[in-house]
C-alpha cells in the first residue's frame, strides 16, 4: 500500500504558477478556483486522495509555499 501523505499550501506564498500541478506524479493537485489568496491568485491544493507525501511539489515550488507531511506506517527505530 502506498504511503499516505498530505500537503499544506501557504496562501501567503502561493502564486498559482501551476508548476507543482504539472510535476505531481499522482496528479492529485489543481488550482482551487473557489478561493483567492491575499495577492489575488488561486492557490494550489489537492483535490482528491492519493498524495503519497513524495514532496516533488515542494521541490519544484519556486516560493517554498508547500509543507509536506507523511503518515508514519511503522515504528521508526530510535536514532542512535
Amino acid at each position, binding site marked *: 500500500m502506498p504511503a499516505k501523505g498530505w500537503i499544506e499550501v*501557504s496562501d*501567503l506564498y502561493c502564486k498559482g504558477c501551476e508548476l507543482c500541478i*504539472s510535476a505531481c506524479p499522482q496528479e492529485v493537485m489543481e488550482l482551487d478556483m473557489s478561493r483567492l489568496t491575499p495577492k489575488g491568485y488561486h492557490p494550489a491544493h489537492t483535490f482528491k486522495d492519493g498524495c503519497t507525501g513524495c514532496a*516533488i511539489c515542494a521541490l519544484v*515550488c*519556486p516560493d*517554498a*509555499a508547500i509543507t509536506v*507531511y507523511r503518515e508514519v506506517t511503522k515504528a521508526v527505530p530510535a536514532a542512535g
Partner: protein
Amino acid sequence: MAAPESLVYERPESFTETPTHYCPGCTHGVAHRLVAEVLEEMGVTNRTIGVAPVGCAVFAYNYFDTDFVEAPHGRAPAMATGVKRVLPDRVVFTYQGDGDLASIGMGEIVHAAARGENITVIFINNANFGMTGGQMAPTTLPGMKTTSSPNGRDVESQGYPIRMSEMISTLDGVGYCVRRSLHDPKNIRLAKKAIRTAFETQVRGLGFSMVELLSTCPTNWGMTPVNSLKFVEEHMIPAYPLGDYKVSEAIKQVKI
C-alpha cells in the same frame, strides 16, 4: 485516532517570512530555496554573507535570513572579494543573473576567477535581462526574440551567445565550475548537490566556485511557467550543455 505523522518538507529556516516579488513560476525562487537549504544543511547560515546583484534578484537580501550587501551592477564578485578578504572565516556568495554577470560584470567575474578568490558564485542564466523588461543579454540564444531584438537575435550584427561556464573553467584559479538546470525535479536535485559542492569548495578553501543554473523567465519569454520549463529543456540545454566543466582533484575527494 489520528495516525502519527512526520514532516517530509517545510520551508527552510534560512528564509525570512517575506514573500518573494518574483513573477509566478520564476525559477529564481527555486534557486533561492536551494541556496537556503544548502546553507541550513551545512549549518553556516549565521556566518554567511551574501552579495546581491542588480537584476531581478536585487531584493535577495529581503529573502535570506543571512547578512547581505548590495553591489553595483555587475560588481558583486569585486565586493565579495573585499568581504571575503576582510572576513575570511565567513561564507561569502554572490547571486547574479546573466545581465549582471555576463554583460556589465564580465570583467569582475573573470578576474575574480583568475585570482582564485575563495568565493561562491550562483549564476542564473535565463537568456535575457529580466528586471528591465526582457532585453537581449549576452546569453540570448540566436534567433530568440527579445524586446531589443524583436526580429530574433541576428548573430551577424549582434554576435553569438557567451557560454560562461566553459569560459570560466579555463582559468587556473577556479576550483569548481559546473552548469545545471532547474527544469525538472531530477535536475533540481542535481543543482542542489552542485550548490552544496560549491559551498564545500569555499569552506575548504579550494578556490573559486561557480554554479550556472539554467533558469526561466516566463513573463519576458511570453510563456506559461510550464511551457518555459519545456523551452529550457528543448532550446536552452542544447545551446548550454549541462555538465561539470571543472572539478579540481581536491574537490573530487570531498564526500558530502
